[in-house]
């Protein structure tokens, strides 16, 4: 059984996102990047399936700030191979990132075994022009299901039972055959923790495979006129003062509204 996990680094929305002065993109030198949350769940789901059914997990990424740490951490968790394709991801649209992955998977013959499951996050916060899973599926002519939060593999390693989230807690049960692509929303259990000391050891004992992909041509189907920050706080009345004063104001409001 082979698991191919495709990951993307995204701007950390908890931190300030810095835009290029011309408004045409994000300044990746001043913006903090992190692994896209759902991608972390894709890695976890692969680890869970590997524990149950055996097999090999291959992680694929492009070049981005902090990505080496993410790859080493994944190896420390149990990922077998980490491959970094030498193309800068921060300048690319999601469609282009999908093209990179699709092209690499085809050229490296990573789909030769039908018992192969491609996992990635369901949606990334910067997926302005599309999501990875459906585009990869289209490029590789594979079936796809997204917003997945639960995967069971049968003993023959041919069929999957997959749960998809709708809204209001409603889920749907689906069946599909391998090979296929899944866009993970959340793994069956939360992403595992791995001690920093173990990651450090992995950095010494393992290596990331750096590969080239000379045939790749980036594409952009639309023109971004500008990126900008929304006007903040047009609605909330900001309560000012020291914490006691602010808390007292809130308590008064709640009292007036009959909540307390």
């Amino acid at each position, binding site marked *: 059984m082979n698991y191919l996990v495709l990951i993307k680094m995204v701007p950390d*929305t908890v931190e300030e*996102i810095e835009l290029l002065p011309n408004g045409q993109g994000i300044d990746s030198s001043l913006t903090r990047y992190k692994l896209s*949350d759902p991608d972390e*769940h894709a890695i976890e789901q692969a680890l869970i399936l590997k524990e149950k059914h055996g097999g090999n997990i291959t992680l694929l990424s492009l070049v981005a700030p902090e990505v080496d740490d993410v790859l080493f951490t994944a190896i420390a968790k149990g990922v077998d191979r980490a491959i970094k394709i030498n193309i800068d991801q921060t300048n690319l649209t999601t*469609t282009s990132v999908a093209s990179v992955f699709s092209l690499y998977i085809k050229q490296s013959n990573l789909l030769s075994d039908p018992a192969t499951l491609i996992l990635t996050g*369901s*949606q990334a*916060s910067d*997926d*302005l*022009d*599309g*999501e990875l*899973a*459906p*585009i990869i599926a*289209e490029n590789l002519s594979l*079936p*796809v299901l997204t*917003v997945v939060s639960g995967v069971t593999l049968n003993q023959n390693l041919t069929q999957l039972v997959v749960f998809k*989230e*709708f809204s*209001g*807690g*409603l889920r*749907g*049960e*689906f*069946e*599909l055959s391998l090979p296929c692509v899944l*866009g993970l*929303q959340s793994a069956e*259990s*939360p992403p595992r923790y791995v001690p920093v000391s173990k990651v450090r050891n992995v950095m010494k004992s393992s290596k990331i495979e750096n590969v080239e992909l000379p045939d790749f041509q980036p594409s952009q*189907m*639309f*023109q971004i006129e*500008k*990126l*900008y*920050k*929304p006007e*903040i*706080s*047009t*609605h*909330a*009345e*900001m*309560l000012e003062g020291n*914490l*006691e004063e*602010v*808390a007292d104001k*809130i*308590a008064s*409001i*709640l*009292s007036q*509204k009959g909540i307390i």
Partner: protein
Amino acid sequence: MNSSILVLIETQRGELVEISFECLSAARAIANSTNSKVIGLVLGKNAYQIATKLGSCDSVYWNELDGAELVPADIVAEALGMLIKNTNASTVLIGGTNNSLGLGSRLSAKTNIPFVNFAQKITPVDSDLVVTCRFLGGKILADVRLKGSKGIIVINSGAFAPDLGKTEGTPHCEKLDGLVSKPRITFKKFIQPAAGDIDITKMDVLVSIGRGIQNPDNIPLAEELAKLLNGAVSASRPVVDQGWLPLTRQVGKSGMTVKPKLYLALGISGAPEHWEGMKDSNMIIAVNTDANAPIFSFAHYGVVADIFDFIPVLKDAIQKHKK
């Protein structure tokens, strides 16, 4: 521009999904200012009945697909592709639901029509459309130009007032035949959410926690505050994904939609996916260390503070007022 705008009318278990009215509203606004037509597509159980009521469309194509409770994405993509070809539609609008996620991207990869996600506003400019997208957790806006108005657009829930999409009347309805794709995925059944310990949709007060709670050991702080307010603790996605609270406590796109009298958001940034689940709360009070957090743009009251400093002080103040 005299080409048409194609709108996917999403259905689930024979019922129209509400966001479809927002799509229709957005489509109607473009159509009115560019003198183009709005074409609807409804598939699945009750499709015909739904089609006949869509007065904001000029025409609607429908197929009940033997009463399908959930229409396979392969068939939706085929039907949209067919209508793009046959009706000269240049713009396609799809609602940003979990059900439809990925559909627009696939259609784009198949047809080479540009795809734009997270649309918040659509403005016709000359023969183009400028789509304003709200992304990166609501922190950044992007103006994207679609040349010749050619594009597949997914709209954010809540971005367009649905009223314009709810015009009464019966449009021209036509059955869409010739759908041949065999879905490669089998839908088995829907699973209702397990009955939770507490039904957060029925609470008057929710103390809702986000990433800012930092670790599960801090959850009792929120629980004590909730108890004092006769409410319950709910959470945004990251807290539930970490397994710190059950799925039944999740507010947002995949989770519950809540409308309490008080929604106290502690350390929640207010990404659009979260907003979708709590926007109709009577009163929203947000506490966050980041003065630029998107939640302050839709909360009624805002406090810039560290929640760990603020919770004990707020508890004291509430206790004082209760006496």
